[in-house]
């Protein structure tokens, strides 16, 4: 029997994300679910371990809100725009509390996810050898990474990293059907392997489509629905990040966050405005349009640059 998994972000986060969980956060600079991230913050989830090859300001907001104890990642920064202030305050000064980061490389986090997606305990990689990532670790101690020798021909040494299988993962995609069959295009980043490594997956999407839309272009499917436990309709759900074919990055908004989050007070003000002070994503978008005007909002929308279609006929 067909089961609809459609629910609100509020319901999905309340039902499936518990304090202390290890949470895989999907997207790579592109298609990051702010719809779910902000709900995690509003519901004041605590002691989370968050995982992603590279984190931007979505991690910073969760850190500032006190949701995070541990980070599995290779990077927490805002590229050329500079440091994320909550991350640094927490790492350097323990504000709002001391957090730990298990330093890997982009590829190493990805490889840990790949091992997780394959259901194998570890995977050997070429990265990290000789670097101080092998010398220092946080809470994982010696379980972070180990040098192993190729048991077959080369006898060379490789770095073995353990499988990463978060309790839950949340991802943003362009479209999904009610059962959670997801399609994504543009920058995939850590998907689809990270999605498969998570024990369960919440998906937020720009559009809910019929099963027939998925079936007409099945090569575009990044995750079949059997892994998905919740489908959250969230138009503009990745704002201020972008979602290819829907809207572009809102750099002004990201600048504003970075400027205001320099002090804990400024951060609180920003968050009161845009996270704590709104009910849900709909409220957030309404506030955005009220504050910046419809013209600016529509300016974010993507132009139509459609691909040529292919013939699936036989």
């Amino acid at each position, binding site marked *: 029997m067909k089961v609809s998994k459609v629910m609100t972000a509020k319901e999905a986060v309340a039902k499936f994300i518990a304090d202390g969980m290890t949470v895989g956060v999907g997207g790579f600079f592109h298609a990051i679910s702010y719809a779910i991230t902000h709900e995690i913050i509003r519901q004041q989830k605590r002691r989370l371990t968050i995982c992603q090859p590279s984190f931007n300001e979505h991690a910073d907001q969760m850190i500032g809100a006190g949701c995070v104890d541990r980070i599995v990642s290779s990077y927490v920064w805002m590229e050329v725009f500079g440091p994320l202030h909550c991350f640094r305050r927490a790492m350097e000064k323990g504000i709002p509390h001391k957090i730990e980061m298990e330093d890997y490389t*982009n590829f*190493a986090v990805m490889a840990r996810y790949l091992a997780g997606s394959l259901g194998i305990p570890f995977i050997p990689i070429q990265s990290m050898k000789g670097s101080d990532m092998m010398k220092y670790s946080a809470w994982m101690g010696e379980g972070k990474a180990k040098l192993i020798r190729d048991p077959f021909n080369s006898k060379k040494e490789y770095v073995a990293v353990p499988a990463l299988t978060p309790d839950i993962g949340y991802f943003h995609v362009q479209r999904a059907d009610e059962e959670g069959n997801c399609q994504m295009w543009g*920058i995939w980043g850590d998907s689809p392997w990270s999605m498969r490594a998570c024990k369960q997956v919440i998906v937020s999407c720009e559009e809910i489509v019929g099963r027939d839309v998925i079936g007409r272009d099945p090569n575009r499917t990044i995750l079949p629905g059997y892994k998905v436990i919740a489908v959250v309709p969230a138009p503009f759900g990745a704002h201020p990040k972008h979602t290819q074919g829907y809207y572009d990055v809102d750099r002004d908004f990201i600048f504003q966050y970075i400027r205001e989050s320099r002090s804990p007070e400024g951060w609180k003000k920003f968050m009161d405005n845009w996270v704590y002070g709104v009910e849900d994503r709909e409220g957030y978008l309404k506030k955005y349009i009220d504050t910046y005007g419809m013209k600016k909002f529509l300016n974010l929308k993507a132009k139509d640059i459609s691909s040529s279609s292919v013939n699936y006929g036989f």
Partner: protein
Amino acid sequence: MSTDCKGAPSTNYTLQELLVAAAAREIKDNEVVFVGVGIPCLGAFVAKFTHAPNVVLVVESGCIGSMPYRLMLGIGDNACNENAIAATSLWRAFSDQQRGYFDLGMLGGAQVDKYGNLNSTAIFGKGDYKHPVTRLPGSGGANDIASSAKRTLLMMNQQKRRFLDKVDYITSPGYLDGPGAREKYGYTGNGPSVIISNMAIFRFDEMTKEAYLDSVHPGVTVDDVKKEVSWDLKVSPNVKVTPPPTEEEVEIIHILDEKKIYTGKGLKELTFESYIGMLEKSYTTLKSMFPA
């Protein structure tokens, strides 16, 4: 060695534009280059529009062979997969790189040492790894690139506190503790080939693996550079003056970075409208100059 660029040298250029051109000249035609953001990325774009039209640019987010007509501000920007050969996953991009397909990677950091080891993880100060005085972003893909790209280009600000005998934390391996170290670890890649700073260009001695001074930028002396290096810097007996960018290179830089985001302080004054305006203008101009 860098590529010799033909064309009239510019007489009106900034230091940042010289750095972009210097980065561009490290790229040879038909190479596969792993690009990040910042000046090296602009350099890679300039190479593509000048002497290296067949270069394949790869971005960590999984975009391979894009043909961007506009500046990337992030490695997840839509510009990254514009007219790309393939838009795939982070895993695919990095697996190709671990397999040894990538010729050049471009890296930066907060500290570098004489063996080209880079630190982008933490400045310890009086603390340690767990209690750093300054926490930095971490490796990102830098360690992967430093381990597996055939060679790497390092871009650094020339300051004594950044050019150290030993970095606080080795995020990305150069030649580690000297000759033989990379061979011992069996990396796919061969290590750094050049450091480009805002004062000079350094290359690595084949025997000692130490960085030496190869050229100084116009107006900079060897002594100026030595003052901003913590170790006893060796100087090439044929130390040169870094050649200026060509007029053509400067023109491309002006089109791509009209608002001086990478080549000036434009980031501070950037608004959404001016940024979009710049991207659209550069897209139209470059597309007419270099149709796909």
